[in-house]
């Protein structure tokens, strides 16, 4: 504890001498990812209430309008329209909603499955650990997206199929992280102290190990969320993701592929939306990770 204080003190001094501008920049960088992700969330939750949009209605007269053009109904298509005359702003907002929904559901499934498997493998050890670890190894050796394509391709398109297909490989990183943390946590003395009191294993895992796995798992949730959104877009791009009545950035990008030279905005805007979200979740994940490693109970 005392060492920490001594070691950290010079850093504070250096921070001051670097001046206000540098520190302000650093604190802005801390806010940016969370702020941008918040905008996505707000757009996904409240956007559909503000921007009316029907994903299956077509308006052929307004097809392929460039950004800023006026439609036949007199409104302005700020980001243009696609090949069937649908407004790009509406597609982006509904696409965000889809991405958030799929991302949240899949991450939830992955977290629960991964943490449970990791806890069991790490705490019980022995045959349980060997078995679960081998399954994890096999899944790691398999490219995630290939696994998702196989599963998604086998079944009728739908939200549930996409969630299952993406979860199938997604839980592995949670399991690996949790197992590693559990391996070291179970050697902690408070775990031994609980064991010598005769506390049953499930209760030890729940009360003395799980709370300490929480912090790194939260960081991984942020990282994985972006990758899963990307995975969903990939499946939809390939035409094996979500059905056509659900707007997905991947589908929109695929639909704009044929018009790249004449109507670039169809593919580019959802592409930017997707890339920005993935990068920001990645940054947020890294921030959380380094924060927990520095200050968390470890």
């Amino acid at each position, binding site marked *: 504890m005392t060492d920490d204080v001594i070691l950290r003190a010079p850093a504070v001094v250096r921070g001051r001498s670097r001046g206000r501008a540098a520190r302000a920049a650093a604190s802005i960088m801390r806010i940016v990812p969370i702020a941008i992700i918040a905008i996505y969330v707000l757009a996904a939750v409240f956007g559909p209430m503000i921007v009316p949009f029907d994903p299956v209605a077509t308006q052929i007269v307004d097809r392929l309008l460039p950004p800023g053009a006026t439609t036949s109904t007199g409104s302005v298509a700020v980001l243009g329209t696609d090949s069937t005359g649908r407004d790009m702003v509406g597609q982006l907002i509904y696409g965000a909603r889809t991405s958030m929904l799929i991302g949240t559901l899949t991450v939830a499934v992955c977290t629960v499955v991964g943490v449970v498997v990791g806890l069991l493998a790490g705490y019980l050890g022995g045959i349980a650990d060997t078995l679960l670890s081998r399954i994890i190894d096999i899944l790691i050796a398999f490219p995630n997206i290939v696994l998702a394509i196989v599963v998604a391709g086998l079944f009728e398109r739908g939200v549930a199929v996409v969630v299952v297909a993406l979860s199938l490989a997604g839980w592995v990183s949670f399991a690996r992280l949790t197992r590693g943390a559990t391996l070291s946590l179970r050697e902690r003395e408070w775990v031994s102290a609980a064991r010598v009191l*005769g*506390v049953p294993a499930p209760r030890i895992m729940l009360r003395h190990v799980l709370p300490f796995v929480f912090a790194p798992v939260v960081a991984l949730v942020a990282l994985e969320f972006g990758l899963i959104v990307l995975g969903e877009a990939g499946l939809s791009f390939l035409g094996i993701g979500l059905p056509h009545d659900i707007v997905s950035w991947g589908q929109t990008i695929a639909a704009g592929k044929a018009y790249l030279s004449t109507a670039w905005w169809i593919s580019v805007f959802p592409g930017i939306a997707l890339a920005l979200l993935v990068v920001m979740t990645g940054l947020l994940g890294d921030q959380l990770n380094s924060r927990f490693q520095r200050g968390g109970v470890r």
Partner: protein
Amino acid sequence: MTDKLALSVRDLVVSTDADAPVRILDGVSLDVRSGRTTALIGESGSGKSILGSAVMGLLPDTMSAQGEIVFDDRQVLGIPERQRRALRGRWVAMIFQDPLAALNPSQRIGRQVGELLRRGGLRGKALEEGVVRLLARVGVPRPEERAHAFPHQLSGGLRQRAVIAMALSGGPRLLIADEPTTALDVTVQKRILDLLAEMQRDDGIAILFISHDLRVVSHIADDLVVLYAGRVAESGPARSVLSKPLHPYTRALARSVPSVSAASAVSDPIPGTAASPAARPSGCAFHPRCPLAREICRRETPQPREVVPGRVSACHFAEEFLDD
């Protein structure tokens, strides 16, 4: 004071499961009687903590134990884990070296101290009162308040008291204390030792006190077992073992303790380094460091034997010490 055996360990062998197994404990025997304290003393690596784990049934997966561990006429080595677990906390409890590490930092003290009471079926107000009673008993001032504190909010001494309260919560007959005072400063050490002695007087608990610190041990031990490289070097009543050792290792150990009162505070260190069970010397494990070593010590492993009634030594020449 009853002389009932609370714990009896006979010829305990703990070995690693590797291809070249190492006998970490090689035929250790010791007794702990109700209401009395047996101190297990040895250098680091002598296997003293492993013995504690073996008695608790919490050896790492990579080690296995043979021999006898008897609680109150019940052999517990090799019984199913479920039965073993039922004994923990209620029959035998353990306290650890570092009281901060032994408490879960994410839970309030009261919750941890009350773990066994909860499992005993206490809830709500009764549970709270039970926790407060336990904390008050181990001398935690303002226990109602402290029960709501987190471990980092308490001092080292209070944390160790909380750990002791936890260990006593199941009313154990045997308490294994693995260097319980090493992480505490000297004044607190003394108070914790007094507390343990008091608990022992009140409840007749048997204590197996694992330590490397002869000074601490000389305060509280009734009986002493000296471990060297996984074997018993000497055992017997603490007072007579310390005043008249029957093994050169014990004698060297007693002399190596720095003394403030003696004219010279410089202690008399034992030459060489402690033998490890992985590379145990032939014959008597202590012979490379022993000033009295002779030819036979290299060849023959001395068996622990009763030299005078109540005194066991594993030295070929134990009798020679009697005349000193």
